[in-house]
């Protein structure tokens, strides 16, 4: 059996769908953030896989993933800071409670 590109992409797709499901259904903002990380990770995998399979000599995909990881780290840190701040104000971190940022 040959492990073609498809075999690598399918777990990544499933991971992404899990992320989507989690992001839509979770109430807890940290849990939503976790789902977000899943999605990001799935994307990272894709970059790496495409890079490896289609352009074996190049490093673009790898670097993109590298930067994505850095960005994810930054984003998580900031999001968590916000969440903690929200928690201080409302003692809860449910996303339904933070709907004032509209209109």
């Amino acid at each position: 059996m040959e492990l073609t590109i498809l075999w690598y992409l399918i777990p990544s797709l499933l991971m992404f769908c899990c992320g989507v499901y989690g992001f839509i259904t979770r109430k807890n903002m940290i849990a939503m953030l976790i789902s977000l990380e899943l999605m990001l990770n799935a994307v990272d995998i894709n970059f790496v896989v495409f890079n490896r399979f289609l352009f074996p000599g190049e490093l673009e995909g790898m670097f993109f993933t590298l930067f994505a990881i850095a960005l994810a780290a930054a984003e998580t840190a900031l999001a968590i800071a916000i969440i903690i701040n929200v928690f201080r104000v409302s003692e809860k971190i449910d996303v339904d409670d933070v709907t004032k940022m509209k209109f």
Partner: protein
Amino acid sequence: MEPVIPIIILALPLAMFLVLGLFGHKMAHRTAGILGTLGMGVTMVLAYITAFTYFFSGSSEFINEEGIRLQSVIFNWDWLAFTDSLVIRLGFLLDPISALLLVVITTISFMVHLYSNGYMRDHHGVWETGFQRFYAFLSLFSFSMLGLVVATNIFQMYIFWELVGASSYLLIGFYYTKPSAVSASKKAFIVTRFADLGFLIGILILSFYTGTFDFTNFTSVGVEGMTNVYQIDLTTSEGVRNWIATSPAPVFMGGSVLTWALVLIFMGGMGKSAMMPLHIWLPDAMEGPTPVSALIHAATMVVAGVFLVARLFPLYLMEEVALNIVTVVGAITAFYAAMVACTQVDIKRVLAFSTISQIAFMMVSLGVARPEFHHGLGYMAAMFHLFTHAMFKALLFLCAGALIHAIGSNDYTDMHGLRKYMPVTHITFLVGCLAIAGIIPFAGFFSKDEILTAVFGQSIFWYIWMSAVAGLTAFYMFRLYYLIFWWKEHKVHEGHHAPHDQPWTMTLPLVILALISCVAGFVPMGNLVTWNGHPMFESVNFFTNLGALDWSVASISLAVAIIAILIATVMYKKENPLPAKMKNALPRLWDWCYHRFYWDELYMFITHKIIFGCISKPIAWFDRHVIDGSMDGMAWVTQRISYAIRGLQSGNIQLYVWIYLFGVVLLGAITAICLF
């Protein structure tokens, strides 16, 4: 002629208006009165000089070797150039009728200025409020009227035509705290404005097809070898007619363009001269101070319509239809106004209707004038009557003013038997009545006789009709005379002193005008004013007019007048039940006459119910609710939609994500399906 004097004639009243209008309220009443009167006096003298120069100097500018009087443009300044040929000029055209009118206007105006010094204060010598304003307006009116009669082109005439309308408005509404005066002034302005609309459109038509505004281009040819001197010549008018007949679209809705233009211009004249059915403003205009009625609404402004037709007379000769319309309108108006005058109670109203009737006489006279008949006798007769009528009607109005001033009421029911208390007024009023009734040798006799002769020459039917009107005239004037000065003895009210004659400032004009009314008939008008400047007589002396009478006509009209006066004497000299009997015998007719044939009600209905109620109000409603409503509606719909889609912006991030995802999936699905 040097233009200095004509310029001053126009400039002086204007200057008086500006001075009195701007600084009048800082002046003493007496100063303002004297200033205004003096200004007008000087103007009068200058106008006399001008007219005298014109008629009698024999200068080649004014009369040629054959004795034909010429039109002379003294000055003509460009005021507004629409195109190269269509230029409004302000100028001074001196010809027989303008010279005549200069004399009439300045004379009456001066008399009125003088008279108002006494009239515009009460018995204790307290000046009327706004006395200075009154003089300012009088000066404005005189300026405008003078400008009107000396107009060199039809647009200048229109300009001053509007100005006299405005000054008439201001003067009728002089007692502006009185609602009736305010509404009368408004009515006068709007009715004449409506007529002016016709005038304006007429001007537009005429000027468009002829490419000129100048009167001299319509009616005259230039005199060879002289600039600015013209002679009336029918070939010019024929040229105009033929030119229009060959221009594009010479016919409009059945009438030739020239007919339309002339009829529309005549409509302007009908408005100003209070011809039926545009007469309704004049009786109401009597709300103004009586001197104003004498000046504007009897002697000068109201004859502007006659003057207008006379000015364009050679053009009117080109269109028989237009002249016939003038005749018919005049004849009907004359009869109507005379009928109404027989029943009115307010003495100024009687005089107002009498004025309408007399102006209608002039119109008829113009309407029947033809060059074939006695060198256009009707034209001369109209001008003659204009002149004499101005004198005796101003006299009558000033007498009425004296009576009103003394009694404090306009109705003859408050007067009766005043002959002993006010002898001067009595005599002068009687002179006026005799003049208007057409008793020899007073002024009215001659002019009215000429008119009747002219009518007789054209149509027997209208001759009988106009003679009847003349009889009615004599009847209602003497009815008025008897009801004021005779009927029953005056009872002195408690606490009132007996009425008495007035101060000299008021008496003097009465006497002067009465004297003029006695002798004006002997002015040999046939040699001074004719439609084409041709003199009617070989030579003239004091009795020319008398000698020229057509006694077959004159004796009949004299007889009619005397019979009418006798009837009036029988009915009204002593208090008796005859008038009441007559009223009861013809109740319907009397009612209609008394209510002026319900014209005012008809107009009220048209303006209030139809124009305001059925046009203006619906339009205003339409604007507020439909037009504005549709704009507001658009705003409303936008707002509704905004509110509706605002729910999507719920703040629920998960929903946003789902929608976003849905969109992405949808796009992906579409792409996937389309690509495979």
